[in-house]
């Protein structure tokens, strides 16, 4: 489940991870990336208290969302990602994080919707490809239909 947790302290529609001016937000993002979710949540929540810019707040909320995805707690993750998207609806990582949270919850159509939204912003992201594979594995049920028939003569004697 750690695949989709590299939210970083991310900015909007590009691939860059922006290290903000607030050291708690930056350190929180790094901790989440390293898989120390609890520590990342603690630092990011502290950083959010001092975050004044909308951009910093949206990125911090998105990172918190990623941390809760990492902890496999989809409900707070969805709530935080939605708050982040209400501030900045152009961050593909946030959509990706919420898609992951929806996947954990088994809400596959919602996950697919967010995944498509993320892919529309950043079509080449490897994270999205991996997440789509995981989503397909969970939501698609393989079915094989077998039908016997006479050869048309091609294979007959």
């Amino acid at each position, binding site marked *: 489940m750690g695949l989709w947790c590299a939210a970083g302290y991310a900015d909007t529609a590009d691939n860059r991870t922006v290290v903000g001016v607030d050291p708690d937000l930056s350190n929180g993002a790094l901790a989440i990336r390293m898989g120390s979710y609890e520590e990342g949540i603690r630092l990011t929540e502290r950083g959010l208290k001092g975050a004044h810019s909308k951009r910093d707040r949206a990125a911090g909320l998105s990172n918190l969302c990623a941390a809760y995805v990492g902890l496999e707690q989809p409900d707070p993750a969805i709530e935080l990602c939605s708050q982040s998207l209400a501030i900045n609806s152009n961050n593909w990582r946030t959509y990706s994080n919420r898609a992951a949270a929806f996947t954990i919850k088994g809400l*596959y*159509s919602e996950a697919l919707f967010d995944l498509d939204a993320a892919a529309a912003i950043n079509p080449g992201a490897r994270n999205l490809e991996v997440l*789509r*594979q*995981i989503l*397909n*594995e*969970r*939501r*698609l*049920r*393989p*079915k*094989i*239909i*077998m*039908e*016997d*028939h*006479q*050869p*048309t*003569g*091609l*294979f*007959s*004697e």
Partner: protein
Amino acid sequence: MKSRFQFALVLLLTCNSIAWAQDQLPDGVWHCLLISSRGVTEQTTLVRFTTNKPVAMATPSEESIPLWRELSMARYDGHSVFFRDPGTDQRFEGVFDGESITGLWRNDHSVGEWWCAPVDAPGMQVVRPRPSEKKRYPFPHPMRLATPRYPSQAVRAGLEGRVVACFKVDSSGKLFEPQILEATNPIFREPTLIALEQSDFRSWPNGQGQPPRPACRTYTFQLEPDY
């Protein structure tokens, strides 16, 4: 020395001209039937062979003049004719028996049959060709049905597809000589062949010494969303 060279040259030219004469199909328009590998779909078409010109193909029409589409040049070795449709990437190979042409077409995914009879007049009085009667066998009854494994890689990638495989069944019900005739994606080939290897049929009564029966099986690989 000079005369020997001239003799060799004459011989070479003579040989070439003999070969040339044998390397030609009779010029003319043929009415053809293209049959898909499963025998499900068939398409009628006109094929025109002209010396030193590419093969041309057109859809038969009683009301309008056919619009000819150029294919590749035909290669004829005195027995079989070969040409390719660059539009569909179908590669045609057929045996000319003096009256009709019968053979197979292939592309990267599938294979089918084609059969042609000459069109008598330029007015396209088309006589619908009938492929020769095929020997029909009672279809062998499946006994053990193995289902192919859906490749997890295909599930992850959201890939669906279809494989048509034909094989023979001997009188004891054993399946042999499986051959993939069509696979929309190569990822489905291996599980299909494994499933066929694990399948068998009911033996048929008094089957001792009888020839094996041909049969085909189509596997359709589908993914259904679970919402």
